[in-house]
């Protein structure tokens, strides 16, 4: 079983559009959406939810006002400025709280309790292209890395049960905790970039993270022709680092049209762009076998 993670560093380079098309082209696979902040893959794959699960991602404090003496000990030890005194009463700012529980541990009158925090949901679903596991992190919540890991573990379990050869995961932007959780254990990361200075800058960072964790990377240059000079800079950079470029996808409005219609672009039309994406899939098949 092979796991491919589609990543990008910079947001909006076309990860999800490409993931959806690969989902439509590959056979016997399972999909996972690891962008748990803002999952979009389901908008193109139209799943039917089979199983909805709650996600408890950490602990949050609550103060029993009857017990609290406003002694200020919790405020003294909190390093995240999450406890404040308002009108003489100690209050918790859950937005700043990291959930370390130190306040509850030091409270001399046990007025602070740590409770499990319901901070999202995750779903096992079926699509016409195969099973999809995806999630929704609660608004302004933490622990996205844990939720990403849950999505991946469940995609793996389904793949095992179904004897699927392949897991395709759509990654989050950035290089922090959700991205690291997405990459850990992947057999191949595919970085989708665009020929802009930001695209190149962010590509370098995400590829370095993959290399840091010992994961092989391939690159797709999307909107290849919007700046050919930058595209050749990306190609030079990849060549120097021995990173294969498995796709050069030209700019075409058809991609947005398909997106607005809510279908993977390879199923929407048959033109040069769809051919370019089909070529990407052939190369990916070769790289993972």
């Amino acid at each position, binding site marked *: 079983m092979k796991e491919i993670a589609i990543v990008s560093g910079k947001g909006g380079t076309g990860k999800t559009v490409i993931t959806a098309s690969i989902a439509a082209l590959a056979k016997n696979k399972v999909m996972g959406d690891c962008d748990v902040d803002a999952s979009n893959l389901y908008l193109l794959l139209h799943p039917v939810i089979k199983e909805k699960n709650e996600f408890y991602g950490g602990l949050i404090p609550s103060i029993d006002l009857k017990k609290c003496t406003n002694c200020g000990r919790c405020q003294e030890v909190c390093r*995240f400025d999450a406890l404040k005194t308002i009108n003489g009463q100690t209050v918790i700012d859950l937005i700043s709280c990291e959930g370390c529980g130190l306040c509850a541990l030091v409270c001399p009158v046990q007025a602070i309790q740590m409770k499990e925090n319901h901070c999202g949901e995750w779903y096992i679903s079926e699509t016409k292209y195969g099973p999809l596991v995806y999630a929704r992190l609660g608004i302004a919540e933490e622990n996205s890395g844990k939720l990403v890991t849950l999505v991946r573990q469940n995609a793996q379990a389904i793949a095992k049960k179904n004897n699927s050869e392949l897991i395709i995961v759509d990654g989050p932007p950035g290089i922090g905790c959700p991205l690291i959780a997405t990459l850990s254990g992947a057999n191949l990361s595919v970085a989708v970039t665009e020929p802009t200075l930001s695209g190149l800058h962010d590509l370098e960072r995400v590829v370095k993270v993959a290399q840091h964790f010992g994961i092989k990377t391939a690159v797709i240059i999307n909107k290849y022709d919007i700046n050919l000079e930058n595209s050749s800079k990306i190609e030079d950079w990849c060549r120097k680092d021995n990173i294969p470029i498995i796709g050069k996808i030209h700019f075409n409005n058809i991609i947005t049209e398909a997106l607005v219609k809510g279908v993977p672009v390879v199923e929407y039309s048959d033109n040069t762009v769809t051919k370019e994406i089909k070529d990407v899939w052939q190369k990916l098949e070769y790289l993972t076998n």
Partner: protein
Amino acid sequence: MIISVASGKGGTGKTTIAVNLALVLAKDEEKNVQFLDCDVEEPNAHLFLKPIIVNSESVEIPVPKVDEKKCNYCGKCAEVCVFNAIAVTKNKVLIFPGLCHGCGACTLFCPENAISEQGREIGILEEGKAGSISFIHGRLNIGEPMAPPIIRKIKKKIKKDYNDNRDNNITNHHIILIDAPPGTSCPVIESIKDSDYTILVTEPTPFGLHDLILAVEVLQKLKIPHGVVLNKCDIGDHKVEKYCKKNNIPLLLFIPMDKDIAVAYSKGIPIVKINSFYEQKFIQLFQKIIQNI
């Protein structure tokens, strides 16, 4: 005032909006503009503002260091650590620095006083000037998972004279622009909290709408006034506009899909530098924000 620029979906044009607004406002000599790039995972604003960096400092979080001479392997440190950053065996203490949030619980509760803390670098912060704009950004080190401590440090750089005058800041011409990371979770919250206004940038596609709705929920939760900039406003459908109108969210600015803008962006050139028409547009954007606060 503090104006942050955010979006649920990545790549919608946050940096473009923040940078161009900063450049337009900085033209007014009376205004004191500070630019904070809080997307420390993938900072991009420097590619457009090209600041001259004059100061660079390391961002560290405190991680425990165990004095094995004093330690009796009682396991209290591991017990109080909710992040599982410490494991204690019969005769060894294992510390996983990548999991440590630096809360200090282990140090405080060690009965033998065997734990001290040492700084571990997770990224850097750089400060400089781009013309009259004071520029600050951070950079998360490769392989590090936690962006919020760097964002917190960037925000501590909000000028003291600003904080001292916060109550009458709307008139005092001190403007802090924050370029936030994409998404809706902790790095975004850390970046935009305490803002007086947040500009949400999106595009008229199903992804753009879906993620805008999530971002609006974040701002409602944080009680920050907000409005929407619709970028590439002519590429998709009209559902974002309908959503905004239905929910009384001001549409602040429309930017059409324009090859010249895309090419300039790809080279790191701000829109206002290629098209003076947009200078006026960004001034209007600022005026609308003032009216909405």
